[in-house]
Every structure is written in structure tokens, then in C-alpha cells.
């Protein structure tokens, strides 16, 4: 971090997130924050270099986008390929993919909560940065550290038992999955459920006991009205695998419901900003940037009528008491994340006890029957969309990905500005102030490695700002 005569504060890199970014805070003469930007500084290019590849390779290729959420990309990609094949996958494959995705959510949420954010909750936002990591948690509350490791391990073990490996498993394929579940693996997973359910519940109780200390943060961490977007089941229940798109407003009113994810381009626009490789999706009918919306755990708690499992439903009911209408503060992403962990564990147990879960019929075989396919699922961080077009040989002609973190791009920028305006004072800048700016980003649990794509062009703006904060030169490549 460097301070440039109190005119521009640069936080680079942003710590305890997945991926690379920086934040610039621009102060006025009075030392108050005037503007703030989240810059995502990495470029991946998956949408371009997959062109020309056989569509059947896409799930395995797309899983490489991210080492934290490869399963979500596998699922969304495979669903897009299912659409290209025009098949309905066997019921057992549907259930197995769901279990796979739920395990992904558990391990990803565990990483976000325990490894990245719990240091702030346990040690405080003003703690020494040298201690605000997993090792600081270990020193202060070893049980919390052990619980985080066990919960993440459980999710990864499910992925490994089903997919063959923990990172970039290729088990989900067009038409279903490549191997059925064995009784040995099913029983091994079921045996671990009671322990991790207990972990999820005691972590929720602990978090609810400490949250009172963060009233100021709750009030200022991305606490503003937006739409919320995500998939829900036909009956309005929480889902991570399949459903229609629902959009609600800050008052909790339903703006749209039952939208077909395959028609996303009718209601989602994408804007590329010059200061970041992260696209900014928005709700088309309201235009940019008024069509700002949020996705992910907080959105799902606002969108779904119920979780559909007993313990999670109890927690969800309590969560909705935080605020009438929609819960708006982004600080509550953390709480929502823990409820989702509880749901995923309960739902996994239900699915594993399904009598069909060991069936050998796990794949539908077909040739391409459509030139275009869209796959959508709810990744840990929010709605994930893969859209492919193929030629007559089944080679990818074009691909578009809308990543969960990308949906939150506008909201993250606005949240950074809100937090910075509230906490950062130019007269005396403390690590605690800057940690809060980073912490609001962490609430969204962004996966920036996943989400950096461009709609066909790379936006580039370089600004030269001197030691007095004056703009000396600017170079811009047109989009």
C-alpha cells in the first residue's frame, strides 16, 4: 500500500481473495474519499482460445478456469453440451451432478469463511495484518481452525470420491457423468455427514454470537438497494443445479420469475469498463448502471422461498428477520454462506439415501442435435452461465461465459466506494481502514481468476498520475 501525498491510495494486491486485483481510492483536498475503483488485473481468455475445440472437450477445458470452483464450471459446461446434444440425462446422473455441485459449495464456502474471512471476525478488523490469516485463527481458536479444515476436507473428499481427483475432476461429461457411484463411496460419505453437520451448526451459532460487534460494518458494507438475481426451483425452493431465473428488488418484490436461463441475453447485458478486465453485467430493462444486481449466497437467501431441508429452513427463517423485505447489507453474505453450507450437507444426505443413487445408468449418448447450447447453474459465488455455438463438425465457433463474480462487479465497485467513504479519512490512514475496504470485497467472495473475460476485445486504459496526484498522461485502446 502506498499513499501519494494523500491524493491517491493504492491497495495492491487485495489480500485474502481468490485472484488478483487492486483498489484505488481518490481523495479530495479535504482528504475525504471522492471515488474508488476495483481493478481486476488479470486476463484469462478462455472464451477465445476454446474456439475450434471439439465441444466434448469443453467441460474438461472449462474446469481449468478455476481451482476453487472447477466443479461449477464442469456442471454449467456439461449442461450447455447436454443442450447441444438435445438430451435429457438419466435421473441418477442428475442426482450425482447435484451431489457434486453441493460438495463444491461446501468446500468453497468453507474456504471463504474459515480461511479468508474468519480472521476478521475472530481477531477484529483492526488486528495486526500479520495475524489475520488462518494461522492467527489457529492461535486464537484452534477448534475454529480445525472445523474449517474438516469442513473443506469433507467437500473435497466427496469431489474426489465421485470425480477421481479434488481439483479439475473430469467426471461430469456431456450426457451425464462418466462413472456411477459405488456403495463403498456412498457409505463413506454418509458416515462423515453427522460430524460436518455439527460443525456447520456450531459455526453458525458462533458467528451469530460475534456479529453484534460489527454493527458499523453491517451498516456500511455494500448496504444499498439493488436487484437480486439467481435460479430457484419451480416451487421457489433453493437450488444450485437447475431452475428458472428469478429477480427480486430491494423491497423483496418479484420483478421477474421463471425466466429461461437459455434466454439470458434478453434480460442481461454486459458492459466492459476500461479500468478492469472484469465485465459488468446488468439487468437490461433498467439499463447500465441502474440495472445493478447481486448474485450469490445473499441473493439466494433473498430469492428462495425456502431451502427445503429442516435445519437450513430454520436458519433461513431467522435470517429473514434481519431486515424486512430483502436483506441488503453485503456483510450478510457471510451469514448466508453458512446457511447454504448447512443446506448442502442436509441435501447431500437426502440424495445419497435415494434408492436410485447407485444405478449404473448415468449417461445419455447422442451426437450434436443443436448448434447452440446454454448451461446454467448456481456456483458458490452466484449464477454461472456457459453459452456455446458449434459448427457442423461439432467444433466451438463461439463461447460466452458469464461468471458469478462478474454479475457482482457493479455491486463490488459501489460497495468499495461506500466503505471507503465511511471509514477512510485522509488525515490518518490506518491498516484497519484499508482492511475494511478489502473486507467488503471478501464479503462477496470473488473469484477473479474465473471471471476475467471480455466481450471480444481487451479494454485498456493507462493513466499516469504524478506524486501530487495530477493526471499527466492517458492512453486508451478503444473497445
Amino acid at each position: 500500500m502506498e499513499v501519494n501525498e494523500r491524493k491517491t491510495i493504492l491497495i495492491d494486491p487485495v489480500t485474502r481473495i481468490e485472484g488478483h486485483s487492486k483498489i484505488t481510492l481518490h481523495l479530495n483536498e479535504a482528504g475525504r474519499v471522492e471515488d474508488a475503483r476495483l481493478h481486476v488485473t488479470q486476463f484469462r481468455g478462455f472464451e477465445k482460445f476454446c474456439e475450434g475445440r471439439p465441444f466434448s472437450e469443453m467441460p474438461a477445458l472449462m474446469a481449468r478456469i478455476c481451482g476453487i470452483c472447477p466443479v461449477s464450471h464442469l456442471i454449467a459446461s456439461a449442461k450447455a453440451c447436454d443442450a447441444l446434444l438435445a438430451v435429457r440425462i438419466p435421473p441418477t446422473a442428475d442426482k450425482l451432478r447435484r451431489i457434486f455441485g453441493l460438495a463444491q459449495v461446501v468446500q468453497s464456502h468453507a474456504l471463504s469463511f474459515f480461511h479468508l474471512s474468519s480472521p476478521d471476525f475472530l481477531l477484529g478488523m483492526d488486528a495486526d495484518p500479520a495475524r489475520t490469516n488462518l494461522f492467527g485463527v489457529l492461535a486464537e481458536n484452534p477448534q475454529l481452525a480445525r472445523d474449517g479444515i474438516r469442513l473443506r476436507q469433507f467437500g473435497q473428499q466427496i469431489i474426489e470420491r465421485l470425480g477421481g481427483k479434488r481439483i479439475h475432476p473430469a467426471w461430469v461429461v456431456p450426457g451425464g457423468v462418466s462413472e456411477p457411484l459405488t456403495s463403498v463411496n456412498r457409505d463413506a460419505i454418509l458416515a462423515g455427514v453427522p460430524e460436518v453437520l455439527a460443525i456447520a451448526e456450531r459455526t453458525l451459532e458462533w458467528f451469530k454470537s460475534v456479529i453484534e460487534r460489527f454493527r458499523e460494518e453491517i451498516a456500511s458494507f455494500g448496504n444499498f438497494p439493488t436487484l437480486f438475481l439467481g435460479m430457484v426451483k419451480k416451487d421457489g425452493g433453493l437450488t444450485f443445479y437447475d431452475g428458472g431465473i428469478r429477480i427480486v428488488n430491494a423491497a423483496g418484490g418479484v420483478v421477474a420469475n421463471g425466466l429461461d436461463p437459455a434466454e439470458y441475453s434478453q434480460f442481461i447485458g454486459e458492459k466492459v469498463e476500461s479500468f478492469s478486465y472484469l465485465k459488468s453485467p446488468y439487468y437490461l430493462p433498467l439499463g447500465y448502471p441502474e440495472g445493478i444486481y447481486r448474485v450469490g449466497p445473499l441473493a439466494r437467501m433473498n430469492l428462495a422461498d425456502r431451502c427445503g431441508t429442516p435445519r437450513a429452513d430454520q436458519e433461513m427463517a431467522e435470517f429473514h428477520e434481519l431486515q424486512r423485505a430483502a436483506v441488503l447489507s453485503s456483510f450478510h453474505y457471510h451469514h448466508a454462506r453458512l446457511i447454504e453450507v448447512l443446506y448442502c450437507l442436509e441435501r447431500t444426505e437426502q440424495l445419497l439415501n435415494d434408492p436410485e443413487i447407485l444405478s449404473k445408468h448415468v449417461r445419455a449418448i447422442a451426437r450434436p442435435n443443436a448448434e447452440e447450447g446454454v448451461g446454467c447453474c448456481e456456483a458458490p459465488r452466484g449464477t454461472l452461465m456457459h453459452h456455446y455455438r458449434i459448427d457442423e463438425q461439432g467444433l466451438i465457433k463461439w463461447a460466452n461465459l458469464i461468471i458469478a463474480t462478474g454479475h457482482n462487479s457493479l455491486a463490488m465497485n459501489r460497495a468499495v466506494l461506500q466503505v471507503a467513504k465511511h471509514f477512510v479519512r485522509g488525515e490518518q490512514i490506518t491498516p484497519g481502514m484499508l482492511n475494511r475496504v478489502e473486507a467488503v470485497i471478501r464479503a462477496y467472495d470473488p473469484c477473479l481468476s474465473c471471471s476475467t473475460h471480455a466481450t471480444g476485445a481487451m479494454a485498456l486504459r493507462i493513466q499516469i498520475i504524478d506524486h501530487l496526484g495530477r493526471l499527466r498522461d492517458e492512453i486508451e485502446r478503444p473497445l
Partner: protein
Amino acid sequence: MARVLIIGYGNPLRSDDGLGWYAAVQLFRSSASRDVEVLPCHQLTPDLAEPVSHADTVMFLDSTHEGTPGELRCREIQAAEGTPSFSHHLSPQVVLGLSRDLYGAFPHAWLLTVCGKCFEPGESLSEEVAGRLPDLKERVRAVTTETLGMCPIAG
């Protein structure tokens, strides 16, 4: 729980960086004993502290930039003292330290490395490194025999 834990880590899409991964995959396929657990990983993470805590002996397999390409080294290692400030890339010593501090475990630990020649994008090992895989696996078998009194890993 396995008495011998073998953790081979690295990126198999980065040429010699994948040595630990490749070695672990081969050992996994040639081992059929509950006393030996083999974990191929992309990188060391805090989650590994738990399986480490259950083992009598842990072997970490990795490539390194130090030495002459193809040079094989095998040394005993100890748990790290103090805590790092960065949990994204852990060393074997830090994983051992986590295992000690979280679970009170003190397994014997070894770090086996082969100096790599090429770490550029690629899906195969260099000739120098590939040629040392049999020796690396033989060292693993030797340490396993020391712990168990026999070796259930096929040669």
C-alpha cells in the same frame, strides 16, 4: 488410517513442476495396502494437516530449482516454528507445523526432490527428470520399508 502418507505435489501442466504429481499417481496405482496412502495434489494446503496427523511417516515429493537437473535429494525435515503470513503456498514444514499445532501430531517426515530442467507449459517431464523417477520411487519404497518392516508398493 494409513501409517505411511505420500504426498506428491506440483502442476502437471508445467513440465517438470509436475514431477511430484506424476510420481504420486504412479505410486497410487502400484500400492494396494491400507497402511499406505498416496495423495497427488496440485499444491500443499492447510487441509493436508489432518491426514498428516494420522501418519507415522510422511513423504513429500516435489521438483525443485536447486541443483543440477535430474539431481535427486532425500532429507528428513522438521515442523516449522512460527507462523507464515501467507497461507496460499505452504511448505512441507508449515504443513507439519499445522499438524503439530492443530492435532498434536509429530510424524517422521521426509522431503524427496528432483531438480527440474524445464518449468514451462508442457505435459511431459524432461528426459533428465523422467529418468530419475525409478530412483525416486525406490527411495519411497525404502522409507516405507523402514516404517512398516515391508513394502506393499510394487516395484
